[in-house]
């Protein structure tokens, strides 16, 4: 069994539930990063994540993922589905990430939002930051990081959820595609487009040579 948690899983199955904390400590922040992208509220995200962890615990006890290769992949699918269910319950309306499983028109929707964000938010936040900074006209690494943080905080769910799954949860394109029931091309495309857009925003603002100082 290639599963790195196999020993812990066996211990939990044999009644040593305290071992579950190792899994929880290791996965909670990565899973929380995904849940918060869907539910937006910290309290709701934590409640949803607790629920997801309890589902995982029961699944371990009841030998439900015996045949699965990776516990983390299995767990993140629970985390995602639980968060979406909770979102539907809380908002009692269609989840905005539903747009994740539609066609190319979503890209336009996403791009529009990114464009709007770029025009309204970045200029403000960056210039405010620049004003606060010293008279030194050169950009700082912190400034670029702030732009990226701000950009990530404003992109629509159909991008942020996929990016989180890819960069934080370390899921492969295939795994994301299976989980979201999206064509693999769409998954790759969204990751590429989100990155390309960010690069475009940054490079429009700062010359490449200047930026390379912080790389």
């Amino acid at each position, binding site marked *: 069994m290639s599963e790195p948690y196999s020993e812990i899983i066996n211990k939990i199955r044999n009644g040593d539930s*305290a071992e579950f904390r190792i899994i929880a400590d290791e996965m909670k922040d990565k899973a929380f990063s995904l849940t918060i992208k869907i539910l937006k509220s910290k309290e709701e995200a934590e409640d949803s994540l607790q629920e997801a962890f309890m589902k995982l615990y029961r699944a371990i006890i009841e030998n439900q993922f015996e045949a699965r290769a990776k516990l983390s992949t299995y767990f993140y699918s629970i985390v995602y589905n639980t968060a979406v269910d909770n979102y539907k319950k809380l908002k009692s309306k269609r989840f905005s990430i539903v747009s994740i499983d539609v066609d190319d028109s979503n890209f336009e929707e996403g791009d529009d939002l990114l464009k709007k964000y770029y025009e309204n938010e970045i200029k403000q936040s960056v210039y405010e930051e620049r004003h606060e900074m010293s008279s030194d006209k050169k950009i700082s690494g912190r400034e670029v*990081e702030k732009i990226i943080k701000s950009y990530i905080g404003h992109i629509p769910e159909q991008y942020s959820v996929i990016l989180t799954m890819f960069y*934080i949860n370390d899921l492969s394109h295939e795994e994301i595609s299976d989980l979201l029931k999206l064509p693999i091309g769409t998954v790759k495309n969204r990751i590429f487009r989100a990155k390309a857009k960010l690069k475009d925003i940054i490079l429009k603002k700062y010359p490449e040579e200047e930026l390379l100082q*912080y790389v």
Partner: protein
Amino acid sequence: MKIFNFNISNFYSIFSPMQDDSKNIDSYLEENIRISLKASASPNFSLELMKRVELEKEFAKEDVKTERIVRYIIGSLTSLMVVFAIIIGFVMKTNEDGKEISYFNSLINTFSTFVENVSLTAAETFGFAFNFETGIVILLIMVCVFLFSFAEKIIFRKS
């Protein structure tokens, strides 16, 4: 004699001293995307979770106990019914043969007197007598209670 130990961390840099700027910017952006996407749960998250896990474990233990008790009760009742049916069958058979079996006859008489007395007491107290119909009704109520508790247990577990 001094031994110099060279550790080459980037082997390819020997052959290509010019760095790929675009790639560097990409990896810089990716690293920052990673940082920006990261969020942290509350520090006491694991503690709260483990409390829930312990509770779940306790509930599971109680469930096992209850299941065992219910299994014992059902087993005892079934064996009692089987024994009772065998005895009745045996008594009926001996009666058909026309043999004198005073012991079994007196046993049946005692049993029927007991049922009669219970029936009379029930009629005086609750206003109904024990007969075949009331037996069926009581049996049906018991089956309904059993089915309801069983179904509730399954639904509760699944949710």
